């Protein structure tokens, strides 16, 4: 054990010194250390992905939409990532609030954190190409980012094959940790099922139980799962479902679909749309006078299950005024973790972070923390450290990173659009109506099928 001081470049040096400390405290520590001794040698023999990490730096890969429709959101994600790297290397931010945490503010496992960025272009092929480049050329140890479920799932598959851990960015589809779950993929952001579960009781409270809903749904993975979840839970509240029309992703003018809605017996319009789709469909619906209409003796209502501040801004507050939906997080939350993050972000960039920024920041910290807890970058051990990890202090209250499907179970928010007069700033579009407890939105992972797969890639 005395050779530990002479070998400073040994990548398992950290493990050695910890083992040293454990040995010094108790005899039992030796027993605990011994398996680590043996497995460390075993680790050193197996190279998975870009493990082992050589040198004094460790590289993270941030793959976000830098071009295309979600470029603005991608830019926010990148800001959050850079902030996370700054805090990991220097301390501060959620390092002060995250519990339990082994982050010391000196990088990860003593190595300085650096990063490379890629452009997903909100296109599955482009995102895979970009991720592959970061993995093969830049030797990243982890890939993260994205604003679309299709992209997330594509990257998850790729990273799983190559033995690189993928920490999802913004992806809401049930499939990401459902039928398309991967051992190397982890999602902190909430999903459509949780939205349905959280939102529907609030909807029936506000609008009554005797309602008929019509869905307009973006025709891809996320849209489908969102629609299914909303239908399942609104029907549990006693609502009827009048119809569902799939809208092509590239649609900008929804008048043809809205005509169908108007012709039906529905008195609630549910827009399973995100991004540009939602901006257009909501604006079109408002132009059709649907906010002022009456059907079946009740006011016609519009629901946008998944909200984001960028979308709200794009639609304009006149249009979202009073419209209900859900978000994963909001900068107005008052818990310690949120406040610390909002302050750090605002100080750095001059405006508050979006929910996309929040999840990306938290994911980065959680990954780093898992490496510290595992004592290594070796993916199977890092994965095990994340599975069933319970933590708090990252916003959203106490959270469980569920091991059976790699999905975070936490509180989510029901949001409502603010009227133009109620807004305080250019970032103040949504208000929190309800913070729904994690236990309420919890669900049995078995309902979505899928298998995580082995710890070591084939």
């Amino acid at each position, binding site marked *: 054990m005395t050779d530990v001081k002479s070998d400073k470049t040994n990548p398992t040096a950290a493990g050695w010194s910890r083992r040293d400390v454990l040995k010094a405290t108790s005899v039992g520590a030796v027993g605990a250390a011994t398996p680590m001794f043996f497995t460390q040698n075993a680790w050193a023999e197996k190279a998975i992905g870009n493990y082992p990490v050589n040198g004094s730096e460790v590289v993270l890969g941030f793959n976000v939409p830098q*071009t*295309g*429709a*979600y*470029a*603005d959101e991608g830019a926010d994600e990148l800001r959050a990532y850079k902030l996370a790297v700054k805090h990991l290397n220097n301390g501060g931010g959620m390092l002060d609030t995250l519990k339990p945490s082994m982050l010391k503010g000196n990088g990860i496992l003593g190595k300085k954190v650096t990063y490379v960025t890629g452009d997903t272009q909100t296109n599955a092929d482009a995102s895979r190409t970009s991720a592959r480049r970061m993995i093969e050329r830049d030797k990243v140890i982890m890939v993260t980012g994205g604003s679309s479920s299709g992209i997330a799932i594509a990257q998850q598959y790729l990273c799983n094959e190559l033995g690189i851990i993928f920490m999802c960015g913004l992806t809401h589809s049930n499939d990401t940790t459902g039928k398309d779950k991967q051992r190397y993929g982890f999602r902190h952001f909430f999903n459509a099922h949780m939205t349905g579960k959280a939102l529907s009781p609030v909807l029936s409270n506000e609008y009554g139980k005797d309602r008929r809903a019509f869905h307009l749904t973006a*025709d891809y993975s996320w849209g489908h799962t969102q629609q299914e979840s909303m239908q399942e839970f609104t029907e549990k509240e006693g609502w009827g479902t009048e119809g569902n*029309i*799939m*809208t*092509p992703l*590239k649609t*900008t*003018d929804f*008048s*043809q*679909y809205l*005509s*169908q809605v*108007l*012709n039906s017996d529905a008195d609630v319009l549910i827009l399973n749309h995100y991004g*540009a789709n939602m*901006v*257009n469909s909501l*604006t*079109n619906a408002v*132009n*059709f*006078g649907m906010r002022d*209409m009456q059907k079946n003796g009740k006011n016609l209502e519009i629901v946008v299950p998944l909200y984001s501040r*960028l979308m709200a*801004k*794009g*639609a*304009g507050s*006149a*249009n979202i005024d009073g419209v209900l939906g859900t978000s994963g997080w909001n900068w107005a939350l008052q818990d310690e973790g949120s406040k610390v993050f909002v302050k750090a972000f605002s100080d750095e960039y001059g405006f508050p972070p979006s929910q996309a920024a929040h999840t990306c920041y938290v994911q980065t910290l959680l990954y780093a923390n898992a490496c510290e807890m595992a004592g290594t970058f070796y993916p199977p051990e890092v994965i095990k450290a994340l599975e069933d990890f319970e933590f708090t202090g990252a916003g959203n209250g106490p959270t469980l990173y569920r091991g059976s499907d790699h999905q975070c179970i936490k509180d989510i928010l029901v949001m409502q659009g603010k009227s133009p007069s109620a807004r305080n700033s250019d970032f103040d579009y949504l208000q929190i109506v309800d913070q729904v407890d994690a236990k309420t939105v919890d669900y049995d992972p078995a309902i979505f099928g899928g298998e995580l797969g082995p710890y070591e890639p084939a």
Partner: protein
Amino acid sequence: MDMTLNAFTLSVLTGLQLGSIYVLIALGLTLIFGTLGVVNFAHGALYLIAIYLAVSINNALGFGLALILVPPILFVIGVLLERGLIQRFYNRPHTDQILVTFGLAIVLQELLKWIFGANNIPFAIPSWGNGIIMLHDYLPFLEGFVVYPKWRMILVVVAIVTVSAVFALLHLTRFGLVIRAGMRDAEMLQFLGVNINRRFMIVFGLGAMIAGIAGVFGGPVTQVSPEVGMQLLVPSFLIVVIGGMGSLGGAVLAGILIGMAQSFTAPYIYLNTIIIYLITVIILLVRPRGLLGAKGVFE
């Protein structure tokens, strides 16, 4: 297809309104092709410039000024574009023209994204155009409560007025006479002492101006974001092909046809996505010159 009269009426109106924007853009495209013989893939970008200009002026100075300022500005931009870039490509093959105008379109799109961001900019409908029309008050055969947004009907009217103005210009004025002769045989006009190129430059400007009008009235409908230009370009170009390259009547007819087709296939998503391509293929197979096209093009 089981459709009530209400549903049918709404689908017809939607088809007309969808068609109106297409027609306005296709009109400019076909005018430019018919006179200059240039395939102008930058036309969608002209519409994009128009909506960004319109929303900026509207949000700062009101809709009235946007309406007055945007079309003339687009006219000037069109002329500058023609003189600066397009005229160097008159004698080049069509593929070169497509490449250069398409490249220009991408550059313009990225420029606008860089200036304004990728997110949508809300373009509010002016108060006098807001609201819905109670169709059941005007059309006795409708039952119950049938409404349609006022602004979209205004858009249809604007399209009709613009198309009529263009036809009037071409058929009732001397300028139009010369242009029509030029569309037929530009070379011969030169021998008759007419500087046809300069007149065509004005036509290019007019085509851009029509895109400007489309932008002012269509902006609140199509929304204002960088992708809109490309999204409208492909259907508009196909409409010009379907109607007949260089035929204005064809552009109008095809525009309405496609608008209707998209409206009526709305409930059937797979059909809806491909219907415009389906129609294009059928037309190209059965009648390559287009619905009202002149013989010799594509034949």
